[in-house]
């Protein structure tokens, strides 16, 4: 099965552009960067999950709270957790961004460029989402009564924004894996047709709510949480059970979204190791569901005793899936990375050979460098000065009439020109051409006459 795939990969890659890599070594070995990438990414995505999941749950409970006020109080307390989680999501994101830009420079930046406007709009969208979340939090007790709908609307706006932003990230992370399709992609929306962006998005959203459910089960379920001040109509066990249920049913739904994601993955990067890892992760997920169901059924005194275990088992699922995600990226990019490396090495060799020629005084190659001549130095001037015509400065004929027999005058002027004529832009200084070159060019300018070639140019001009 996989031998057949290799042949397919090569034929597919034939359509992929192969850019050269940057000509600087990685600061630390690629393998270390990849480990760092997976670890920092998991830390980042944990808080992203909490941010997205909490904003969705806040809206759901606030809506329920319209008819059942104690859930409004609960929604408000969930909203309070967003403040810290969303800021950690952003700052922890810088690390994986740093790592991915280093190890997958070409692939990541290509995807960024191809989704240009959408990619940059992540910034204003996150700012808006954060401001909406603050507004939602700090107006909770002020926008009541007839303003309540508006308040729900603000929360909904934040939640919708928080749902859109992951789609832009996913489109990039997904697009970078398929260089053979870069040529066809024209912006963000067409990038959504590459690979399997939407199954990944569903999987991510479900995971966000599951993570948040598990977090809130611990957050409100712990004895030290001051329920009396904030949520007098709830008790710790009840809240813990409620959020265990949220985590349970959403994870149950992952038994559908997970396989959907796996079977829609383009086959190029699916390897045996990857399949084993994903299946192991799925098996641990089932163990997690079992643990959760035991917790939910436990009576009020015992619920929460196994909370630490649920978190540990869930972490194992996340590590398995996160590693699988990385393995898929590695295997789908390895052939293309090799092509890039080969091309970069070839170019580097050409560059070295060229510099050896230059150092040996052989010139760069085709044209052996001779010494400067008046004509060659005049190329610096020819953009503005012609023999018998006005381009962007006086003609040589006119200059000859001013400086006849006075090449030193030309040299003086060229070193520190002033501005004499209103119709032209001021001439830039040419002191960086040494005296020898300036003398050559001054003599050339005073002796130049209109050649047939130049006449031709001027007839075209007329």
């Amino acid at each position: 099965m996989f031998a057949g795939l290799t042949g397919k990969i090569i034929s597919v890659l034939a359509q992929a552009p192969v850019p050269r890599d940057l000509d600087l070594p990685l600061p630390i070995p690629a393998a270390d960067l990849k480990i760092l990438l997976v670890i920092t990414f998991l830390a980042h995505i944990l808080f992203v999950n909490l941010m997205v999941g909490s904003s969705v749950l806040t809206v759901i409970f606030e809506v329920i709270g319209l008819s059942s006020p104690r859930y409004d109080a609960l929604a408000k307390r969930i909203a309070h957790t967003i403040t810290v989680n969303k800021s950690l999501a952003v700052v922890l994101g810088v690390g994986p961004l740093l790592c991915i830009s280093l190890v997958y420079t070409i692939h990541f930046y290509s995807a960024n460029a191809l989704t240009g406007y959408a990619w940059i709009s992540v910034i204003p969208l996150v700012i808006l989402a954060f401001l909406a979340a603050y507004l939602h939090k700090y107006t909770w007790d002020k926008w009541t009564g007839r303003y309540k709908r508006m308040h729900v609307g603000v929360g909904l706006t934040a939640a919708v924004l928080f749902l859109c932003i992951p789609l832009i990230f996913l489109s990039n992370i997904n697009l970078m894996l398929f260089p053979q399709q870069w040529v066809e992609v024209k912006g963000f929306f067409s990038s959504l047709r590459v690979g399997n962006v939407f199954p990944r998005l569903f999987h991510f959203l479900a995971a966000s709510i599951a993570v948040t459910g598990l977090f809130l089960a611990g957050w409100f379920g712990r004895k030290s949480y001051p329920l009396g001040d904030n949520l007098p109509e709830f008790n710790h066990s009840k809240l813990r059970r409620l959020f265990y249920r949220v985590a349970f049913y959403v994870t149950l739904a992952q038994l559908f979204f997970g396989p959907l994601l796996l079977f829609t993955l383009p086959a190029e990067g699916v390897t045996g190791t990857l399949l084993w890892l994903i299946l192991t992760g799925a098996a641990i997920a089932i163990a997690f569901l079992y643990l959760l169901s035991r917790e939910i059924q436990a009576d009020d005194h015992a619920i929460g005793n196994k909370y630490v275990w649920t978190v540990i088992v869930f972490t194992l699922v996340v590590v398995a899936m996160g590693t699988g995600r990385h393995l898929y990226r590695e295997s789908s990019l390895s052939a293309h990375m090799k092509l890039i490396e080969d091309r970069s090495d070839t170019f580097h060799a050409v560059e070295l050979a060229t510099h050896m020629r230059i150092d040996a005084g052989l010139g760069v190659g085709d044209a052996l460098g001779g010494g400067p001549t008046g004509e060659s130095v005049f190329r610096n001037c020819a953009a503005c000065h012609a023999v018998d015509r006005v381009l962007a400065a006086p003609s040589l004929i006119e200059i000859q009439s001013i400086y006849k027999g006075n090449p030193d005058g030309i040299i003086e002027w060229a070193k520190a020109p002033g501005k004499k004529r209103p119709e032209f832009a001021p001439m830039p200084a040419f002191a960086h051409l040494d005296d020898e070159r300036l003398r050559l060019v001054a003599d050339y300018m005073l002796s130049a006459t209109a050649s047939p070639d130049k006449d031709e140019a001027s007839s075209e001009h007329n």
Partner: protein
Amino acid sequence: MAVIASIHVFINHAFAVGAYPIVTLMEYRGWKKGDGAWDELAYKVTFALFVVTTTLGALTGVGIWFSAALIAPFGIGSLLRVFFWGWFIEWIVFISEVILIMIYFLSWKRMSASGRKRAHIGIGVILSVFSWLTMAIIVGILGFMMGSGRWPETQSLFSAFFNPIYLPQLAFRTAFAMGVAGLCVWFLIFFFTSKGSGLRHGSVRYVSRWMLVWIIPFVAASVWYWKVVPAAMAANIDVALVTQRFTQWHETLAIIMFCAIGALILVAGAGALKPKLLTSILLFVPLLLGLWLLGHFERVREFVRKPYVIADYMYSNGVRVSELPVLQRDGVLTHATYVNNHTVTSGNQIGAGRDVFVVTCSRCHTTTGINSVVTKFRNLYGEQPWDKNAMGAFIHTMHTSRTFMPPFPGNDKEADALVAYLKQLQVDHEFILAAQNSWTVKPAEVTGATGGP
């Protein structure tokens, strides 16, 4: 990019670096004098700082990365490889800063109520230090882009970081941040206090004194920085190449520095002596001058950098100094990835010229939009049909007459093709956006953005 960077630079200076020390001092004063109204005012100002720094401030910082990846991918990619540890440490400090901001604001009421005021003020002090550290690290990276110091020889992080311009730039930015932060806090005080109240006068006077304290370091740092810039430039390029435009900018910088300092002294002096005189509108004068100064400062910084994106290593169009002779001999199209034509023939001049334009010019120039080549050549040659020989000469030597331009990284045939394309543009305006956006025109050329030419 420019918008994101300006917002970030301003917020970072005025709010994060300069303002947290001020609110910490205000909190301290309220605590020492047992004045609850001062504490409440400091808390309200901190709330505003909290909202702004954790949204606009933090996100525009990340945004610079996002936009740099689009605008100068090979530049930022290379900088990342050189400065990995610098940026890694910067990241850790950034995390600490944001966590401290959240602790400082969110624990204010609880810690005050439970009698741990001293510890809370301590958090404010640590936060102030971390905000400054974030800036101290980033300035090293910015300074490196201006003058790479001894980096080309040693290739070490240390020598790249402590480049000649590092300390003066840090001093300038620190003093600027402290001064302008005073204006911002002042503005917030007007927002949170009622007109004519004793609290407003007291706090305005307090902030004014803070600003006056920073005037002398500000003047000294300005002079120091102003004097170092040309020398740093000279280290990169031949002194003689310091063009009239730079001299002009350099002089303008001095004038703006002078005006901004003068306005700051006037306003801060008035605030310290006669706080009743001041209205919020008057505050806008030094605030705008400060913004102008900062904008100008950043622009000069950009200009000084040219024609490089990384001094002595990479030109602003992404071509490395070392690969230039190869490209000029073999042709830039020969080694390019995302082009339709790899060689110039008599039949494909316009198409190949267009490819050359996209690969070598479009990082900075559009055809007819912002910073357009058509306008540049029209300024030079006017409305008459442009002379192709003169244009060819210009393209080959533009880096000697326009010293902010990189040398043309192609061979003679490609220069001719480029001229043919430009001459067609003079007649038939075709709009091409900068390379990072050119998928709107032709997908195949887009990711020229990424791989280098």
